[in-house]
């Protein structure tokens, strides 16, 4: 069925999102920086290397266990900057607010943003507010953009993975997506699960302190671990092989995924990263990650192989292997 209208799956972070990007946005906005399709643009401003990114947040519900839309808006942009090895510096915040939105809720959200910005060491230096008629937006949407500085010598990109490199995951997967699902109207189920929403810039700096051989960093948000690994495999022209038994999944997340028919590999995270590191430095980087509170459950989950190029393989509990594809148009609820 060809789409002449935007459907929800176009925002899933999967194949339809890519179609939209390639067939619509890239056609009108094309330039060499954008074409790299990283989560941030790397700019050279008078000899200074700057990372620049933007993201919009439309999560429903806006308050959830482990955070809210405000914390998410700061952490998401801080993390996108951090995945280039940048030190995030300044953030903008733009709000689209539905008429009738409680001021107390707005105060809660801005308070969360302040705390998250303090923890990440960034300042919110510019912004904008729009109020729309009731029904024209769902409560509140936030857009944040950010810039960060990249030290010379750092070259981290989704296209740098090399055969033999190790793949490190910074902790359990699917926590954010399931925490959100468990609070959605009509699906409330009792769980102690918290969103993993967190700023990862310090974790990245801890890693960069111990190794100059970090090739790729990505945060597996929309589309989950599977989608991000596929992006790295395609960008670098390599194969990635991961072991199911090495991927940490909380029992509560696993159980909820069973109930909902989800695969944790595709469920969103907001405080995790994937690192591709030269095998020589992998253990050293892992050790540094485990010392940081946001990396204590880090694991080496697999390695980079030569073929099949552009594909991600999973070695299952049974020792069999299967292809892990990108997320294909599943209609998951708004998670970020």
């Amino acid at each position, binding site marked *: *069925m*060809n789409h002449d*209208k*935007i*459907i*929800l*799956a176009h925002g899933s972070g*999967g*194949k*339809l999102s890519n*179609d939209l990007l390639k067939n619509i946005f890239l056609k009108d906005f094309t330039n060499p920086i954008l074409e790299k399709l990283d989560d941030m643009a790397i700019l050279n401003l008078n000899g200074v290397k700057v990372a620049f990114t933007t993201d919009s947040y439309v999560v429903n519900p806006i308050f959830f266990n482990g955070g809210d839309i405000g914390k998410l808006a700061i952490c998401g942009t801080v993390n996108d900057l951090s995945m280039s090895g940048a030190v995030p510096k300044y953030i903008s915040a733009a709000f689209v607010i539905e008429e009738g939105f409680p001021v107390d809720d707005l105060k809660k959200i801005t308070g969360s943003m302040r705390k998250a910005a303090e923890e990440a060491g960034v300042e919110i230096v510019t912004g904008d507010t729009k109020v729309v008629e009731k029904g024209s937006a769902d409560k509140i949407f936030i857009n944040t953009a950010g810039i960060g500085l990249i030290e010379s010598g750092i070259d981290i990109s989704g296209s740098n993975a090399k055969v033999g490199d190790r793949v490190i995951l910074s902790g359990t997967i699917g926590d954010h997506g399931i925490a959100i699902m468990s609070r959605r*109207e*009509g*699906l409330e189920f009792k769980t102690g699960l918290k969103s993993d929403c967190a700023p990862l810039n310090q974790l990245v700096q801890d890693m960069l302190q111990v190794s100059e051989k970090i090739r790729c960093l990505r945060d597996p948000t929309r589309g989950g671990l599977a989608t991000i690994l596929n992006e790295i495999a395609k960008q670098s022209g390599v194969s990635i*092989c991961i072991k199911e*038994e090495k991927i940490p999944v909380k*029992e*509560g997340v*696993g*159980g909820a995924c*069973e109930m909902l*028919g989800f*695969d944790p590999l595709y469920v969103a995270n907001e405080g995790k990263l994937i690192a591709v590191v030269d095998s020589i430095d992998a253990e050293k980087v892992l050790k540094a990650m485990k010392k940081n509170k946001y990396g204590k459950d880090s694991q080496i989950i697999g390695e980079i192989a030569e*073929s*099949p190029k552009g*594909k991600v*393989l999973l070695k*299952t*509990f*049974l*020792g*069999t*292997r*299967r*292809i892990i*594809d990108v997320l*294909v*148009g*599943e*209609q998951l609820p708004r998670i970020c």
Partner: protein
Amino acid sequence: MRYLSEYRDPTIAKKLIEDIKKISKKPVKFMEVCGTHTVSISKNGIRQVLPENISLLSGPGCPVCVTANGDIDKAIAIAEAPGVIFTTFGDMMKVPGSYSSLSEKSADGADIRVVYSTLDALKIAKNNPDKKVVFFAVGFETTAPTIALSILEAERQGIKNYFIYSVHKMVPPAMAALLNLGEVKLDGFICPGHVSAIIGSKPYEFIARDHKISCVIAGFEPIDILQSISMLVKQVENGEAKVEIGYKRGVSSLGNTKAQEVMKKVFEACDAEWRGIGVIPESGLSLRTNFEGFDASKIFDVDVPPTKEHLGCSCGEILRGVKLPYDCKLFGKACTPENPIGPCMVSTEGSCAAYYRYGEVVDGV
């Protein structure tokens, strides 16, 4: 909560695989009836560890996939009727009918909402007294009791603007229909776990008794499925045909009698059309006469355009076990999960979606 790791233990799996290889001599075809089994088999690469003489075929056990085009067309027509809020499980949103899908109609402006339970639909009806709220009742015996309960609850609360459009179906009559068609010679059925938790094991006894085909009710973890295959192989090699429960933590021989009572109170058996199979007598569930005030198929007089099948789509043969997804010329080319032509590619539990996502053969690994 250790249930997940226990049923994925590589040591236990290895022993089961060795047992199967040791005792399995005859070439056999086993059909997993349930879509969740299909996904689990593909996801865990179970076909890769079985000896070559054991073939696994997928059956008509994904309720989304077996919903006929005509029923989807009627659902869409009801959803577009004035003053209607149409509610559905998410799986049905993208299934193409003859001309469109609920997802496309939602983008066109029809008020179509995904719910996670019938009680959500009931809540929407209570909160919107000026609207007619219709729930698209798709599923097997697993979900039928919850839908029956929503009808009883609507009656108790005097909610007059809640209706269901039932295309509910029962699994054993479809298994009988497949056997009567005789297109595929089966040696065993891996029977569905969730359906059996409701209906028990007795409804399958005719399969063992009249058709001499082995049946094992299985859970959904890799160990569950390997154990059920091991049990089926033992039956076949011993020349036996009986119904066994391999999923004892979820299924008893009598099933959930309370759920059965609620189902019987609200629903009665009716003829139903299954995609790829046609009309199977007494295989559907329609509301009894005393509940027909809740029956959307009687309340809404809508124009439904003539049903049209999708050219080249092999979903029907795939649902009957006659073809594998790879045998369909549209598979992975014109028909993919993001641009599905047939329902087996749309549903998360459809055979084609499972084969597409997990079933790709990887050379040299």
